[in-house]
């Protein structure tokens, strides 16, 4: 089918531009998710008066379906909170909030999995709470949850296809534009699907490789 060349290859700039936006949104969302997840997790574990709030938020962000969350953040939040002001921001914010719920739980499991003996050893050596946490506990948490964190990134990428609905010009939205222009969905949509699948596949491969290396080096069970 010469159609492939005409419809896909010749339009690669359009598609790649979309892919660029997708990567941008996902990267920002990922960073937000890690920060948010960390914040929620630490609040839940160590800030007693705010515990119920943290737990509620974690559950809320995790349990609400991403599409519903996206529409809610994109259309309700600007009216109520004044933010997000653009759909691009709504996109990464919604994706980030959803994943922060999952990561908060991942971090919590990681923290609780660090053997108490580690803390005992650190305190006995005279280290403070903060030092123990940042030098002993958190590094282990990061290492043991790395595979889950990478996995969450693939979730973000897969969910990002929905931001096309709120008119963010990502890969999905660009390919839909092309279909509307050319009225020939087969090659364009198949190529788009293949692109997403390949992208996510590569990320998960990298995650597996990372998990193997970590297991090898540190003997930590990957979660």
């Amino acid at each position: 089918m010469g159609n492939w060349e005409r419809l896909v290859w010749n339009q690669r700039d359009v598609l790649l531009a979309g892919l660029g936006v997708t990567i941008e949104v996902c990267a920002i969302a990922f960073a937000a998710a890690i920060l948010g997840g960390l914040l929620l997790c630490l609040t839940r574990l160590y800030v007693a008066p705010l515990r119920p709030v943290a737990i509620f938020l974690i559950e809320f962000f995790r349990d609400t379906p991403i599409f519903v969350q996206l529409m809610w953040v994109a259309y309700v939040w600007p009216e109520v909170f004044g933010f997000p002001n653009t759909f691009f921001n709504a996109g990464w914010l919604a994706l980030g909030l959803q994943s922060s719920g999952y990561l908060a739980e991942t971090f919590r499991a990681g923290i609780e999995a660090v053997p108490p003996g580690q803390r005992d050893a650190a305190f006995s050596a005279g280290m403070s709470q903060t030092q123990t946490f940042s030098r002993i506990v958190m590094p282990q948490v990061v290492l043991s949850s790395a595979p889950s964190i990478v996995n969450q990134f693939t979730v973000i990428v897969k969910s990002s296809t929905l931001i096309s609905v709120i008119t963010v010009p990502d890969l999905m939205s660009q390919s839909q534009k092309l279909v509307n222009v050319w009225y020939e969905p087969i090659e364009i949509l198949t190529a788009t699907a293949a692109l997403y699948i390949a992208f996510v596949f590569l990320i998960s491969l990298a995650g597996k490789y990372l998990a193997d290396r970590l297991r090898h080096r540190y003997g930590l069970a990957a979660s």
Partner: protein
Amino acid sequence: MSDALKQSLDLSMFWEYRAILLQGLIFNALVFLCAASVALSVGLGAALMRINRFWPMRWIGTLHVEVFRNAPDYIMLVWVHFVLPLLIGMLIRRRVEFHPFVSAVIALGFVYSGYFAEAFRAGIQAIPQGNLDAGRAFGMSERLILWRITLPQVVRRMLPEALNLFISMFKATTIVSLIAVPDLMYNVSMVIAQEMRPLPLYTGAALTYFLIIFLLSVGVRHFSERWRRKILA
């Protein structure tokens, strides 16, 4: 700002339309049930192919899993609804169209079959070899061993994980509104188009889903705790 906040928390509008919204929710449930059946059966098939003796079968099974596990739900939904009918139409030289419900079931069913296949495979390979040896020693055929020894144990072990996958799947059904399946979100958008008041409706939808999924998750968590203790006694 507080005016908007008040508006969005004023769920009387949501309540007013509860009948039609409930209908939508039922559609979500229907899509979920059908897609779950597809996901389970196709997933089991793919898992069995992955551990087959012949390498082409293993290869196909692995391909299936990797393609569907890594595919975003939405693009699969769009592809099944718009591209697949055209491909089939080309094959049988007739115009083919999928009802959106059918597309939704196929798309979600196949995407989640990838996840279920992995869960099944891990469960199957975790069965101790000795169990199978005993079966063979008694002259049981491989098929008998699979259905009487392996799969019952796999189901027991994988039940918590399967339940979590089901919850994910139910959450995923929210996207079917995008191909005009009249689910909750679709009806919400209809009402918004009519009433021009998105705030209470989107908020209401978020709260509704949150409550449902939250209750389900808590239930599954408790159940899984007790189940794991019972199974791994």
